[in-house]
């Protein structure tokens, strides 16, 4: 009955078609689709940049890439992956799924939503344009300071730094707009009867993310603006000669930068338990404990920032404080791990692609988390810091913990969004290739770091040759495997076996009560939660 009503309404849907549909849309599903598409494209762009780096690092000696171009690639790779691939993917899911999960017809602020998305393409262009300009002899290429913008190197840098600063401004505005929209939606548009403590976990993950974004993005915007005025208007915020301090920038940057890690991960921690309960056919364990842990992690994430630069020099009490507070994050995180595993425990599990990615995600993110615990130790950090050990560590948290989580979400919700089942065999192949080549890429980097190879160097001593070669070969397998992912998504969008409303046998929640794909305007009749 409700299905026919919805279909009836859908016939009356009146919206422009073709390109104008996408430019002017205020529909949460359309905007979500655009976010996800943008994210996928930028994931491939950022990925190809790093394959250039890995090709150069395949063997010692400079072969392909000059050192200054090398420095540009590493920084832009990171900015693209963080701001243009991971964050938009999470926002895309939020747009698509939050209204469906809480029984709302759309996001609370649809026009703002449209604006938030359309800030992204210009900022991606700003980030990458200096590469093209340099080909025409304008400027000397993109930002070459690494994604962290540390002055005085960034004050010395060329126009690439200015472009990146404005790109970060736009991305920041986009994130803050998106966050406001999500907070307003979650607080005002939940279906009757859905109290906060009945909200789906994904909504909780995003709510905390949104608060973190609003708290920290302005700090980043302020820091890069100070950098801009230092570069062009003679201020001395970060110049000791004028009474400033270069290390102050690091404090400001990481006050944003550390919560940013959780901004990238909290949405994933939100939907991972939902995937687990679906494929374990058993309600998630410890809902309240998980919610409290998410809050605890969100709160702690803003008070541990200085562990990113222990070697910059700090008084002993500060070192001890940041070391112990960082270690303390392991407590709520352990609660989450416990709940995830307990959700699987004595369930009735099946291993379709989303579940494979989720299980792989738990193991690999576990490695990222545990190495993070070790990194908190100030003395050992003197060795790990800025070595390949750290590179491996944060790829375990951000590639495994971030991107592989997002992939689990894509396979989980793709049938709901498109109405078609993806190719299960290809999905599983994609998982195994990704998981194996990911480990072969980054496990050698742990050992490279321990042996003493610094990060961000375009060429290295001969003793590091073997591990770099293995890492480079695996990185290319990892990169090429993602083409399977792209192919699978495109062919699922085009057609395939029809998906049912519930899609997965064990799926529960409001989004699974709608047909697949859901009508353009969903929940025209408000569902009631008992």
């Amino acid at each position, binding site marked *: 009955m409700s299905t026919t009503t919805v279909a009836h309404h859908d016939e009356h849907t009146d919206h422009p078609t073709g390109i104008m549909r996408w430019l002017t849309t205020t529909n949460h599903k359309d905007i979500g689709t655009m976010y996800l598409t943008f994210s996928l494209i930028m994931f491939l762009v950022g990925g190809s940049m790093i394959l250039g780096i890995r090709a150069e690092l395949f063997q010692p000696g*400079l*072969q392909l890439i000059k*050192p200054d171009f090398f*420095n540009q690639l590493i920084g832009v790779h990171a900015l693209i992956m963080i701001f243009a691939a991971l964050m938009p993917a999470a926002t895309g899911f939020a747009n698509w799924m939050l209204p469906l999960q809480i029984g709302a017809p759309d996001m609370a602020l649809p026009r703002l939503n449209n604006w938030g998305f359309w800030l992204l393409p210009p900022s991606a262009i700003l980030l990458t344009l200096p590469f093209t300009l340099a080909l025409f002899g304008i400027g000397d290429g993109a930002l*070459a*300071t690494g994604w962290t913008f540390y*002055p*005085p*190197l960034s004050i010395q840098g*060329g126009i690439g730094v200015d472009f990146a600063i404005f790109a970060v401004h736009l991305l920041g505005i986009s994130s803050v707009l998106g966050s406001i929209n999500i907070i307003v939606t979650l607080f005002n548009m939940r279906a009757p009867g859905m109290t906060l403590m009945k909200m789906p976990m994904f909504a909780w993950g995003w709510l905390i993310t949104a608060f973190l974004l609003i708290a920290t993005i302005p700090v980043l915007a302020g820091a890069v603006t100070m950098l801009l005025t230092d570069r062009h208007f003679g201020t001395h915020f970060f*110049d000791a*000669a004028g009474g400033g*301090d*270069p*290390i102050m920038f690091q404090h400001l940057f990481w006050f944003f930068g550390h919560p940013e890690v959780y901004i990238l991960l909290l949405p994933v921690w939100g939907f991972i338990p939902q995937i687990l309960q679906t494929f374990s*056919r*058993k*309600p998630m*364990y410890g809902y309240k404990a998980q919610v409290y842990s998410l809050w605890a992690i969100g709160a702690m994430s803003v008070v541990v920032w200085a562990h990113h630069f222990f*070697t*910059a*020099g700090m008084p*002993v009490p500060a070192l*001890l404080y940041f070391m112990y507070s960082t*270690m*303390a994050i*392991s*407590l709520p995180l352990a609660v989450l791990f416990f709940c995830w595993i307990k959700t*699987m*425990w*004595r*369930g*009735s*599990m*099946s291993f379709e692609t989303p579940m494979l990615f989720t*299980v792989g995600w738990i193991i690999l993110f*576990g*490695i990222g988390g*545990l190495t993070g615990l*070790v990194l908190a*130790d*100030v*003395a*050992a950090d003197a060795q790990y*810091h*800025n070595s390949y050990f750290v590179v491996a560590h944060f790829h375990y948290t951000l590639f495994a913990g971030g991107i592989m989580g997002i992939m689990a979400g894509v396979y989980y919700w793709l049938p709901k969004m498109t109405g078609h089942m993806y190719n299960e065999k290809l999905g599983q192949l994609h998982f195994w290739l990704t998981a194996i080549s990911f480990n072969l890429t980054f496990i050698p980097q742990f*050992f490279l770091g*321990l*042996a*003493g190879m*610094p*990060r961000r*160097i*375009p*060429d*290295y001593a*001969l*003793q590091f040759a073997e591990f770099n*070669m293995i890492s480079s*070969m695996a990185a290319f397998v990892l990169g090429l495997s993602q083409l399977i992912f792209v192919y699978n998504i495109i062919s699922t969008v085009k057609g395939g076996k029809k998906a049912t409303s519930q899609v997965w046998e064990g799926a529960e929640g409001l989004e699974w009560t709608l047909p697949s794909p859901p009508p353009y305007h969903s929940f025209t009749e408000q569902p009631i939660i008992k």
Partner: protein
Amino acid sequence: MLKQAMKKIGFGLLLLLTAPQVLAEIRWNFPEPVTPMALDTLHVHNKFMLIVAVIFVVVLAIMIYSLIKHRKSVGHQAVVDKAPSTATEIFWTLIPFVILLVIDFVIMGIPAYHSVVMMEDTKNESDMMIKITGSQWRWQYEYIGNTDKGNQNGLVDAKGIKFTSTLSTPQDQVNGTVPPVDDPKSPYLLDVDNRLVLPVGAKVRILMTSTDVLHNWWVPQFGSSRVAVPGFIRETWVQVDKAGTYRGQCKELCGKGHGYMPVVVDALPKAEYAAWVDLKQKEINAQAAGADKEWSKDELIAQGKAVYDKNCAVCHQVSGAGLPPAFPALTGSKIATSPIFDASGKYLPDSHLDRVLNGIRVMPAWKALLNDTEIAAVITYERNALGNSVGDVLQPAQVKAARQ
């Protein structure tokens, strides 16, 4: 090219297959520690790694058990989790919390505390002080002198010795025009012209700063790493307990030469250290004398070429063609061909000498890095070689005067 690449890939695959044989040569952990700090770090690291490995294996084992036993395909039915009694819940919540608290703040926390305190104690019991200055892309070492304790221990005072340490791997290998050469005496990218020399067993307090951007002085076998911040002094310390040569690298991204500013330290027994100090001090006296004597044009050009290739060619290229727009050409450049001094003998602003002494933007201020003779030589070389032929000669005495 392709054939070579195929061979490399084949070699890599072979490496994977024959891994056990190769493993013996590959380093799996920190290199051998030679300072108390590095030894401590290695112990802490091993202990922590063991702890996290145990946690990982235990949790993974539980999970894998569940993945095998609790699957639908073997007919396992999902069980409904029942809410435990309050007492049981509190018990099962407290136990893991206590275990984690103990791991974090006792088993890991206490040794970590002692390491931090030890690492930051740069002043007590130190025998001598040196100052390390990072510049794009070289290290400058200056011996500040002994402490009272150092003098009591009979350590030779190296006060006043000061030199710059630059990558000595040939530029054609660095640029990739020829493949890297495997030379154990001078490892590729890890060797310098002037090594820092330290006495074995002495606690050396290190003051660190920078003239341009952030750098980080790091020798893995010392376990100490500290960022050099322009305009600020940062501190660390080393006490090398074993004679030998130790190599490390800058580990803070500092521009295009970041991968090319290695740290090399020779730790010498006390007697050999004393001989080195003596030799170095004689050299300094000779140089001071050299600055006052009148040099011939050919002498200056010959020495200037050596200085140029080592310090300037990275950016301005061996040929003087530069890498525009970031690094301008010297061949035919206005600065390198216009007069240095005005009629009264004062050097002009934006003249060749001004630029080399004081730098501008990315160009370092060389007055802190090169001595009078070196600056006079390199300027004379740049004006009379690299396709330029101004014909004039700059004497070290004039540079010395210009510094005042």
